């Protein structure tokens, strides 16, 4: 038998117990109320699908082909009415404060019908996380209360996140790459703020968001050490919209080009820069910037994984229904053994994908940015205290610099590096596994349905068009494979290096 004294060393060997079997380690720590809360969220997503997604998806997809400039204002209003835009904003910032992992399940549900509409709901949180993950309590408090207010007044206030540039896509998500790359969006420090010049592309919801969370660079020769995060309101002088991108799928959710020409952003709208980092740590700024990026993508990649599972599920459900209703060669497809095996393969893809994004969520919940929110006493305190309490007693405190210092110190300075690697690695795994499954299932559904599946009015061809984008955004699946290697495999061998071949 193994001795107790041996256990620690044996479990520290590769693959480390701490970095695997996450659900086994962390499920017991789950506040029980989270399960009930999650069930309610899933039910709400299903109701939203019945009342909004299913009736609108095909019609609007077709509409975007007829009229490329179409913008989904009505849908955004509907999503706002359902409370999606404040659902996962913590109560301290004015939101409904639902547990953040439940966002994945809701996105899977909506994505199983339409990834474009799923994106209209979900991509707003990329902007939200672009502020929270930078540890800026003051701006989180200001802007996220505005989102909550938009929900009450019926005038949606949504956020977009601006990172990708015409000559820097993948590069923007890895500091090692961007330092050698072609970053071009320049934020020049001037008295009282920054002046931004440059272009950002492929910005989901860009044309329709009220605020954009912009990441630019104050030194284009060494951008990785000189990131500047800013909030820019739509309508600000110097910010205009370029082309409305003409995508293969997810067309209901617009992707935009944003053009910054001598656009002045005041200091009070700066989310993070080098000077702000100096106030809470002596660590090099690039280390902190990488942590901010990793926090954001560790959440967003799990969410994209959930969409991938949604895509896989949607394709499976359509194929199953078709097989149950259609006769081929004299008998129902569902009674052909080959079709049964194909449907089982699709079901397996869904189940395995879901398990992987759940593991990614456990990493985020216990080793990443959600950690503090899943701490049971705090979870219940936040859950049962009325919002008015936070608005009255907590929000005023968040306006002080001390709140920024505390939040930045806790999230950006104190997270162990091993936790950063674990969360980032698992998020990448979930992202590329689930999105490959999504595309694969759409292809399999088309194979089973033949020409019937090719028709836009039968949903499945749209699911393939929509699913393909999942393999590209939030870092291509190739980049995510390299990131998994970097985070979960390379640390075992000191001689292993990435991005240096």
């Amino acid at each position, binding site marked *: 038998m193994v001795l107790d004294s041996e256990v620690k060393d044996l479990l520290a060997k590769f693959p480390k117990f701490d970095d695997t079997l996450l659900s086994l380690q962390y499920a017991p720590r789950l506040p029980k109320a989270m399960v009930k809360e999650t069930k309610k969220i899933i039910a709400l997503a299903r109701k939203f699908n019945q009342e909004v997604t299913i009736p609108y998806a095909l019609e609007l997809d077709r509409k975007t082909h007829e009229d490329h400039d179409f913008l989904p204002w009505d849908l955004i209003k509907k999503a706002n009415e359902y409370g999606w835009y404040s659902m996962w904003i913590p109560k301290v910032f004015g939101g409904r404060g639902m547990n953040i992992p439940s966002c994945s399940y809701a996105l899977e549900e909506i994505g199983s019908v339409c990834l474009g509409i799923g994106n209209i709901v979900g991509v707003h949180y990329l902007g939200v996380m672009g502020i929270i993950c930078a540890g800026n309590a003051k701006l989180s408090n200001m802007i996220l209360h505005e989102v909550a207010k938009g929900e009450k007044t019926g005038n949606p206030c949504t956020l977009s996140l601006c990172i990708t540039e015409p000559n820097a896509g993948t590069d923007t998500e890895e500091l090692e790459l961007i330092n050698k790359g072609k970053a071009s969006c320049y934020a020049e420090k001037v008295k009282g703020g920054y002046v931004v010049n440059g272009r950002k592309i492929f910005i989901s919801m860009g044309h329709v968001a009220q605020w954009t969370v912009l990441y630019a660079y104050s030194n284009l020769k060494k951008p990785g050490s000189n990131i500047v995060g800013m909030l820019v309101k739509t309508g600000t002088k110097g910010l205009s919209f370029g082309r409305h991108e003409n995508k293969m799928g997810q067309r209901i959710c617009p992707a935009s080009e944003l053009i910054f020409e001598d656009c002045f952003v005041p200091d009070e709208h700066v989310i993070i820069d080098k000077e702000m980092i100096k106030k809470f740590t002596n660590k090099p700024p690039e280390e902190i910037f990488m942590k901010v990026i990793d926090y954001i993508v560790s959440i967003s990649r799990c969410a994209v994984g959930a969409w991938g599972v949604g895509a896989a599920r949607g394709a499976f459900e359509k194929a199953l229904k078709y097989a149950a209703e259609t006769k081929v060669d004299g008998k129902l497809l569902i009674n052909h053994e080959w079709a049964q095996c194909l449907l089982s393969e699709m079901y397996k893809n869904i189940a395995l994908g879901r398990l992987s994004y759940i593991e990614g969520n456990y990493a985020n919940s216990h080793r990443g940015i959600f950690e503090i929110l899943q701490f049971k006493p705090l979870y219940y305190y936040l859950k049962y205290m009325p919002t008015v309490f936070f608005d009255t007693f907590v929000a005023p405190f968040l306006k002080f610099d001390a709140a920024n210092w505390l939040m930045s110190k806790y999230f950006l300075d104190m997270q162990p590096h091993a936790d950063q690697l674990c969360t980032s690695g698992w998020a990448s795994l979930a992202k590329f596994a689930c999105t490959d499954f999504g595309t694969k299932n759409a*292809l399999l559904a088309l194979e089973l349905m033949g020409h019937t599946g*090719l*028709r836009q009015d039968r949903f499945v061809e749209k699911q393939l068009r929509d699913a393909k984008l999942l393999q590209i955004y939030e870092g291509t699946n190739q980049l995510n494979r390299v990131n998994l290697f970097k985070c979960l495999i390379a640390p075992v061998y000191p001689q292993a290096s990435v991005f240096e071949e």
Partner: protein
Amino acid sequence: MIVSMNEELKSFQDLAENYATKELAPKREENDKYPFGLFFSSALAKAHELGFLSVTLPEEAGGIGQDIGALCVILSCISTADGSLAGIIFANSLAQEVAIKAGETALLAELASAATAEGSLLAFPAYVNPLDMDSFIFAKKKDNHYFLTGKLDYLTLGGLSSKALIPAKIQGQEDYSFFVINLSSAQVIKSEPIFSLGFHACPSVDISLNNVAAALIGEEGKGALYFEDAADRMHVASAAISMGIMKGSFDEALNYAKERFQGGRQIINWSEVKMLLANIAIKIKNADITIAGVCRAIESNYPDWSLYSRAAALQVQEMACDVTIDGVQLLGGNGYMKDYGQEKRLRDAKQAQALLGLVPMEKIRFMKKLTE
């Protein structure tokens, strides 16, 4: 293409490449807007003028009387630029092959003599093997005349042509027959062009017939025989479309990989990109040699050539689906946009895979033929 190593086929390749480069490639994005944009009538007219709509049609029927190799060369070159026109040529050639098997050269000669490209087309349900159909149009026979009633989904070219060749079952018979109908008949109701995944400018329609006068082609109950014989040859032609799509995807990806930088280097210099490109190139080379071999087998009447033709289609079509997924991936976000041809090639590859019927059922039929 290896199949065009001989001089005559090389001239077809040059002709088709020249046509595709000048007539199709520059307007690919615009032509793909159909049915929400204009139909590319002038490109189709030019294809008609060059004889691309009657490549395998015998000379006595007004065609240019080439064998399957010439059709494969033309389809491959055209689909490198735009799969939609290849889809039109394929569907029309398939209908012609079925009619030839049924001995209907007079009908084909009449169509070939039409003044316009649209007038020479014969609509056909190119995406289904009638044996897999759940329900059939019924034919009522009265005084040696036939009248058809029922519905048929996804009739390719049905919105363009004036005549269609469709399968139907004569009342009281188990096996189906083929009939020609006039699509302008008042008893024919056609849907709007169906908005589909790929081949946007090769439209299909749903039709509904109410006692429509029809002409039987060949003999009663011999439809499956004519279709399977035609499909034996046309499978390799569908593989040629898929190969052309793959080639277009590779060319676009290679050019992009040389121009695009990541981490300060051309992306072609990252080994994972090289790996993806190599996987695509290897598949194309294998498809090329496979198609060439099948064409030679057909032309020399090699034993069991039909199995080679069907195997080639199943393999190359699947390769094209994989290749075009990676073809988009190599261009990242740009590959997903309509500005490049990659997203269209992904859609077209999957559309092409559905030609001639359900893939799994095709595999089962293949095994049946193999073990007979």
